[in-house]
């Protein structure tokens, strides 16, 4: 099969996926910011893997789906994960707990934000992971020159977790607050509540794999979801099962299902 991977990187997990598929006889091309032209030229592959959620790759995903080329994971779902507001409503609909979320310009925040709201954390609306994230301990920390409305979340003080899922396998790690996926983590043997969160999340949106970032609040012991991802690097996956082969086989299985459905239609 001819497989395209939409990814900002050519190495890391993307490189491993490419090698795995190639070693199984498939022809694989990686499309990144330097070689991706979104037009008819993309339609020669059988299906695409949407590894990165940057808008460029989502654009490609929408284009391909409109032209009946399967994209895995689904583009709309990846966008929901990418856009923090869409993600907020998706998590809320699943019945999982979230921190309070606010938006406003510097002036409206100045009028409304009382001391009790802090600490707050600002995040880019279209973002994922810890990139562009900032903590504000008081209103004075906010730059008055910011012109665009800020997206702010209550900063939950407590224990932070990175929780992966690949089909029915979970890997839950404790991590440092605000660290990215690649930071140092400690494996947690079992956490029933986090596992329940993962089950609900993946089943609500029919996800093959992904991750949630969670925080258990120190004072209340409540568990909050603070971020969700469709396609992690699995750099902190600590179980025996090989994430590369498992993820690739799930993708192939999904592709066969999509093709079968299309043939029935």
């Amino acid at each position, binding site marked *: 099969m001819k497989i395209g991977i939409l990814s900002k990187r050519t190495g890391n997990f993307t490189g491993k996926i490419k090698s795995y598929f190639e070693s199984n006889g498939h022809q694989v091309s990686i499309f990144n910011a330097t*070689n991706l032209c979104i*037009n008819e030229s993309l339609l020669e592959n059988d299906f695409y893997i949407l590894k990165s959620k940057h808008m460029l790759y989502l*654009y490609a995903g929408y284009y391909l789906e409109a032209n009946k080329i399967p994209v895995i994971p689904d583009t709309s779902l990846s966008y929901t994960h990418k856009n923090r507001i869409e993600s907020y409503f998706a998590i809320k609909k699943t019945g999982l707990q979230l921190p309070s*979320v606010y938006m406003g*310009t510097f002036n*409206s925040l100045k009028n409304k934000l009382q001391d009790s709201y802090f600490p707050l954390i600002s995040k880019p609306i279209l973002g994922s992971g810890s990139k562009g994230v900032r903590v504000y301990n008081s209103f004075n920390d906010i730059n008055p020159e910011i012109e665009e*409305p800020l997206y702010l979340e209550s900063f939950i003080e407590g224990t932070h977790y990175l929780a992966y899922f690949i089909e029915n396998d979970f890997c839950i790690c404790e991590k440092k607050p605000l660290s990215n996926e690649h930071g140092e983590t400690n494996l947690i043997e079992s956490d029933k509540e986090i596992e329940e969160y993962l089950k609900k999340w993946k089943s609500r949106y029919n996800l093959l794999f992904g991750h949630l970032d969670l925080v258990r609040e120190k004072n209340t012991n409540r568990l909050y979801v603070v971020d969700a991802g469709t396609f992690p690097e699995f750099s902190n996956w600590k179980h025996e099962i090989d994430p590369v082969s498992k993820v690739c086989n799930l993708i192939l299985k999904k592709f066969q299902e999509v093709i079968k459905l299309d043939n029935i239609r």
Partner: protein
Amino acid sequence: MDSLVKIGLVTDKYHLEKKSTQFLKYCKNVADVSIYIEEDYFLDFSNYKFDENIFFVKAKGDLVLNLAKLIEQETDIPVINSSRSISLAFNRFLNSVFLRKAGIQVPDFTLNPVGKSPPYKDYIMKNIIDQKSYAFNPQIQKKGGYLKVIDKRAIDESSGRKPKYTYVYFQEFVKSKWEHKVYIIGDDIFYYKQIPVLVNPDKMKSRIEIEKDQELTEIAYKAAEAIGLTICSMDFLRSKKGIYYLTDINSSPNFNYLKNGPKIVGDYLIRRAKT
């Protein structure tokens, strides 16, 4: 006596001051209008109360769109236009994809990394996200008999001091004597034609009202449905072969250009309001 319909106008300072005065003047006597302004509004996703019968979104900033999204997700109050349709309308690439998927003729398009030329002889390079209130600023080049039009906003956004992205949107240029302009406000539709802005930037100078065109009507409603807009305007170019190509779709048209435009919009919102 029946109480007046309550309309929530979700807007920003620019649209409020420059585009909404006549609308507000008309609504003063027929509706109760509350105004949500992007620059002043504090959006708290877990603490809100809306008692409006309908919301009218007349802007496209991030806070405006997310307020609209909150209302759509958490209430049954109609929102016109929806947050999704506005986002699709201002994203040239995505609306091209969705329009073509719906069977609407749009000029051929491509999204390329900066520096990579499109596969068209005549083309326009446009900004991808047309969310801000600044105008089309074309640089026109003619080389070897071919036309290259570059919108300065596309250069600023992809290669300026602080590039927002590193790729550009190209649309194949369609030669047309006239640019056809269609306004849709619910079931009402209005038709005009004007000299294309590339030929005469003062679009209103040459604008004339034209009679109902059945083909244009069908295309326009199909396009509005594909994007999800109920109030919008569209630009069409007609090729030598007589094909209408949709080149632009706008979720926030200036309805002051229409005779009785503010009244038509106000009355439409009242008809669509939740009872």
